[in-house]
């Protein structure tokens, strides 16, 4: 996983709440079996509207998405994170994220920075007034700054550490193989197994 320490880029104000993962990437794009190449799928339905914020020329090259509350609700599809990554986003800022989406984002190197809704509103105002305003998201200091705004954001300690180090979860867990073996030896014998097939 690529590490994340600090990032500065321009931002896209997405003035919508409850941006569910069906909007981030419609199901039709989930048929692919690869992990990359989803940039065309991001917000595919909304992007058909020429007025959609992502279609505005001044938003080209933006790397930070600032969205309303309850971002990433619905389906567990990690493709939503891959699509945001592939499009070029490094950070999503919102006042509340759905749990599964947030877990997925931390696994795939996309920072989900949770701030108070009034910070979201301020960021919207700032980047709408001047789309070229640089926004900095500092994971070391846990702050987001733009213009004269400096605000703290929430990210859990462990997720932050993994993101700073760019660590692979599976490697970390496999270091605990003895503990897993030991736990398995204590499982009740009546716990079900899928094999052999019974009918």
């Amino acid at each position, binding site marked *: 996983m690529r590490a994340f320490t600090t990032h500065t880029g321009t931002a896209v104000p997405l003035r919508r709440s409850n941006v569910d993962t069906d909007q981030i990437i419609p199901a039709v794009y989930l*048929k692919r079996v690869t992990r990359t190449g989803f940039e065309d799928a991001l917000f595919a339905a909304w992007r058909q509207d020429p007025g959609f914020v992502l279609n505005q020329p001044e938003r080209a090259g933006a790397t930070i998405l600032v969205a309303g509350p309850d971002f990433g609700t619905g389906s567990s599809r990690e493709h939503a994170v891959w699509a945001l990554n592939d499009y070029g986003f490094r950070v999503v800022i919102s006042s509340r994220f759905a749990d*599964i989406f947030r877990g997925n984002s931390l696994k795939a190197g996309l920072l989900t920075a949770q701030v108070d809704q009034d910070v979201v509103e301020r960021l919207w105002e700032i980047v709408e007034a001047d789309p070229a305003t640089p926004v900095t998201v500092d994971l070391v200091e846990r702050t987001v700054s733009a213009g004269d705004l400096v605000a703290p954001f929430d990210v859990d300690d462990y997720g932050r550490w993994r993101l700073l180090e760019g660590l692979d979860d*599976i490697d970390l867990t496999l270091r605990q193989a003895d503990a897993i073996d030991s736990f398995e030896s204590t499982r009740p014998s009546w716990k079900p197994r899928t094999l052999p097939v019974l009918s």
Partner: protein
Amino acid sequence: MGTTLAEKVWESHVVRRAEGEPDLLYIDLHLVHEVTSPQAFDGLRLAGRPVRRPDLTIATEDHNVPTTGLGQPIADPVSRTQVETLRRNCEEFGVRLHPMGDASQGIVHVIGPQLGLTQPGMTVVCGDSHTSTHGAFGALAFGIGTSEVEHVLATQTLPLKPFKTMAITVKGQLAPGVTAKDIILAVIAKIGTGGGQGHVLEYRGEAIRALSMEGRMTICNMSIEAGARAGMIAPDETTFAYLKGRPHAPQGADWDAAVENWKSLVTDEDAVFDREVVIDASELSPFVTWGTNPGQGLPLSANVPDPKDFENEQDRVAAERALEYMGLTAGTPLRDIRVDTVFLGSCTNGRIEDLRAAADVLKGRRVADSVRMLVVPGSVQVRLQAEAEGLNEVFTAAGAEWRGAGCSMCLAMNPDKLAPGERSASTSNRNFEGRQGAGGRTHLVSPQVAAATAVTGHLAAPTDLAGEPALVNA
């Protein structure tokens, strides 16, 4: 101080606990389907890792499968490739697979319980948010992303931060014609789509205890629509009776040992939940959604709300946008909303009891000429049982289409979808924009409301049909 059901299941699965780190939790059952697994198997191959416990893993084909032309290859080449990829992966890694055409194929959340693989006190995961369904058995069951699918395949564990707990107590009794679906839609409308964030919900109370396993699964299934990671119901005699004799349920002395263990899976009297919500079942009536998230719902007797009446700015903006997308006008009685399609099925309401309930309403009646109704059983087993009971004949005699098993129009990854602007009453779980097809408009309803709506052509409850003579096309 006592502990909650969720905490008990959690504690009994901790493989490793260390200061400042998430707990490492053991996973008892890993369900796999074709959509969220290919990249996970790829990851294993790249790292040269095996599946640690193929005997705790089971796969099925559900999201992409067509519900007509059974036995034919999938026409869509991209869907076909995804399904064939799952077959190759299961073969290579030794994972049990129930492919299209197999007698145990079906929606992943229907086949787990049906095979007796979902049992009380287990941890169950799947790369699918509706894994919360399995919580109906007192299991801690939750959806995960593809990176986590790979993690579970490789290690049979997951590092997890503890969840908070929320009690949803549904006291009293449901009125006749009011169902589990109406309870959960009312719960989501009450606490909101983010209300359960970070929480495991435990559904309790008289109305919950009175539900069948199918009803309990409907409720736990939609916990995710309230933002919760999982929903749970303590196991009881209803649970044990459902499990006994199923293919993978314990037998003989093992059964007795298991039941003794399962009976301990209750929240202690003195346990404290982080949050408690109480709902009076006797005040509930058939519930439908009017908007584009599952929290935007109201009793069927209500009118389409006026966005101006929402105090919260975000809610008002969301309501305005939802009405525009849904093509609805504030103040319109919900009962006046005409639909083009009725979808009966999904992991929420595609079980035998759901089909029976809808067939009861449709018996001797006709689906309105203006409506197409799709009936999609949740699994091949459900389909066969329904056929043995003659339910398929009730549906086809009424003019509904009797289909093969799968996820179908719930998320429209197969050919079953709404056309732009088309409106559905659907027993599924999500009314998101475009969920059932680009531009499609979805109203979430119970199986009974779906059937009555099919007959009248507009949103309706079975009681609306009482005065109608049978066999007359409404």
